[in-house]
């Protein structure tokens, strides 16, 4: 009978950290991490010491002092007595506005161009190819400056609208004024307004929420829910009887009747822009800086998105389309049920990075004097207070948060549309 003994358990020795391949990689990683952290700590301590020597210790107290400058485009209330932090926040809302508008416009245009570039029509496909190549191969800063220059130089200035022999006139039944200071469009006004709610009291992040807007949004959401119910019922009837009842007129009624009733109840009317004094007054003023930036960023990013969309569609093998056709699906349904769901899987991840690029490129806004967060916090505030490091750190944090938020939302969407593999 042989005695079965376990091999003696090898005790751990310190030298194994280097000579034992099981542990060596941990050792190397730990050393590298330590070195990296030391390097970081050296940089930070060096900066702090040097700034101290210069007499400029790292402090953020300046953010609570009055900013003393004005910002032309304000989505929220602000005046020059507000703090630098408030000014930075106003800049942040401007950044978000142009990023939001830009992403939407770039997506629509990009999908359109991407699909058309695959067109069998030679001319259309070539025109789209030229557009893509021209836009994505010229730096976006030049497009922004060009867009602004064209708007300023080619459009009439407000004084051209004045007098008896005016050289310019308002368009759309005298409701829209297109000038080289921006486009003035009618603004929605409510004579029986529900008022605003003031959120966050007196803090630098305070904002007003219009109850009118909230009511309109709620009614639209409720209508859409009702329409979905009607459609579900129609589908149920179709499944049991084979006949689908006509629903479009019911849906139209559900969507528009409550909305119109609400608008009448709120006393909805339009405020038209009017030439008073130096400028047009009233209406909503879309500044040229915003238009130029929006236009240039959208056109530039759309060129990239077009290529992504084209790649996404080409990635779906033609066999899929043919198979769907063999099952009796029509071309439109083949696109929406077979090709697009699979193409989206390819399209979404690079699309995220293009949204991030567009948002980060919006920091070129100062080239046209658009007061985004780089213009307020990273421009005027930094220059007036001389707090370069603090301002740049806060700017980096702001862009990091925006970018990570966009990524999070888009990744969530991606995980919903991606192909479930078995």
């Amino acid at each position, binding site marked *: 009978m042989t005695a079965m003994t376990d091999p003696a358990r090898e005790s751990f020795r310190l030298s194994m950290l280097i000579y034992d391949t099981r542990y060596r990689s941990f050792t190397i990683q730990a050393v590298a991490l330590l070195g990296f952290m030391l390097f970081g700590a050296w940089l930070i301590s060096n900066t702090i010491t040097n700034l101290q*020597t210069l007499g400029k210790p790292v402090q953020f107290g300046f953010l609570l002092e009055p900013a003393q400058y004005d910002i032309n485009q304000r989505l929220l209330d602000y005046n020059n007595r507000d703090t630098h932090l408030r000014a930075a926040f106003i800049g942040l809302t401007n950044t978000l506005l142009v990023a939001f508008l830009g992403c939407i416009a770039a997506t629509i245009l990009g999908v359109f161009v991407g699909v058309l570039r695959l067109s069998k029509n030679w001319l259309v496909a070539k025109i789209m190819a030229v557009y893509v190549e021209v836009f994505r191969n010229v730096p976006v800063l030049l497009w922004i400056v060009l867009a602004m220059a064209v708007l300023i130089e080619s459009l009439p200035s407000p004084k051209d609208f004045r007098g008896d022999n005016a050289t310019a006139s308002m368009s759309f039944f005298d409701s829209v004024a297109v000038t080289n200071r921006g486009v003035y469009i009618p603004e929605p006004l409510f004579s029986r307004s529900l008022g605003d709610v003031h959120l966050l009291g007196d803090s630098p992040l305070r904002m007003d929420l219009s109850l009118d807007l909230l009511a309109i949004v709620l009614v639209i959401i409720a209508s859409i829910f009702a329409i979905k119910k009607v459609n579900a019922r129609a589908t149920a009837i179709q499944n049991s009887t084979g006949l689908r009842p006509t629903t479009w007129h019911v849906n139209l009624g559900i969507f528009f009747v409550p909305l119109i009733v609400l608008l009448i109840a709120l006393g909805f009317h339009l405020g038209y822009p009017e030439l008073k004094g130096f400028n047009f007054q009233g209406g909503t003023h879309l500044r040229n800086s915003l238009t130029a930036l929006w236009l240039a960023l959208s056109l530039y990013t759309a060129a990239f998105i077009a290529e992504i969309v084209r790649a996404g569609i080409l990635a779906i093998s033609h066999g899929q389309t043919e198979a769907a056709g063999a099952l009796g699906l029509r071309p439109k349904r083949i696109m929406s049920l077979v090709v697009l769901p699979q193409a989206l899987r390819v399209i979404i991840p690079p699309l995220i990075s293009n949204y991030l690029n567009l948002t980060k490129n919006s920091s070129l806004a100062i080239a046209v004097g658009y007061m985004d967060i780089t213009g307020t916090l990273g421009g005027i505030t930094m220059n007036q207070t001389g707090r370069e490091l603090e301002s740049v750190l806060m700017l980096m944090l702001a862009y990091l948060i925006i970018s990570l938020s966009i990524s999070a939302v888009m990744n969530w969407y991606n995980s919903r549309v991606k192909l479930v593999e078995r």
Partner: protein
Amino acid sequence: MKKSVFLGALTVAGLAAGAAAAGTLDDVKARGKLNCGVTTGLVGFAAPDENGRWDGFDVGVCRAVAAAVLGDPDAVEFVPTTGKTRFTALASGEIDVLARNTTWTFSRDVDLKFTFVGVNYYNGQGFMVPKELGVSSAKELDGATVCIQTGTTTELNLADFFRANNISYEPVPIETNAEGQQQYLAGACDTYTTDASGLAATRASFENPADHVVLPEIISKEPLGPLVRHGDDEWGDVVRWTLNALIAAEELGITSANIGELSAAAGDNPEVNRLLGTEGNLGEMLGLDADWAVKAVQAGGNYGELFEKNIGENSPVGLARGLNAQWTDGGLLYSPPFR
């Protein structure tokens, strides 16, 4: 890009500490060249001429300092800076002296850690409007669109002025003077505001200067002067007394025409002798040659000559001396005595 700014700031901080410790005067001598920060281009004050040679009133100060320290008015490396980059450039040691229409304010002197060595132009902020607008006072500008260079004191003065007069305006921030011109001439703004001297210079470069007027209101005090980093008093003294030498030279009647004769031998006026180094050892005290002031004046003439040549009434800019006359003529220019 953000990361590079951050690392840039770190290097900047590192460089600044090094530069302040070494002594700027020795650095400049060792380098054989003065790094001088100027505007990106403002006719009369600092702009390259048709041959690419920098010329102007602020440039004259740079050349005088270079001549005093290095003996050569052309030993200057001109670094064009914008309103936003100028202070970082100076703090980081990229430039030794900033002569760029910079207003001397409390916070820049105290909080930003710079030393203003004097005033070379007493200025104030004004407004320029097209004549056809029919405006005669800045208080009539209610609701106007105002083009303004961002990152300057003018931005704050503008906000204060309109607030104090309880009138509204729409600011159009722009990055450089050239962009401001473009927007103003295209009618994208009703009025352009900056220092009155800058307005005169800008107006001078227009095709039809007569179509534009500078409004009479001066809404702020803008003493413009060269500045250096805090904490290097030897270098500050060199720049300060070079500027004073130019001012004193005009007061004492020393011009680029007669300076050769006056500095050849000690004359009757002891202060002239001390200034020109034919008597005493003022140059040695500064760590410079005895004839430092002679070279400074020879570089471009005394203060009055520099003024007349670049921005005076017979130049395209056409500014009157006004507050910038010698104290003996009712102005504010007053150099401390050379003794």
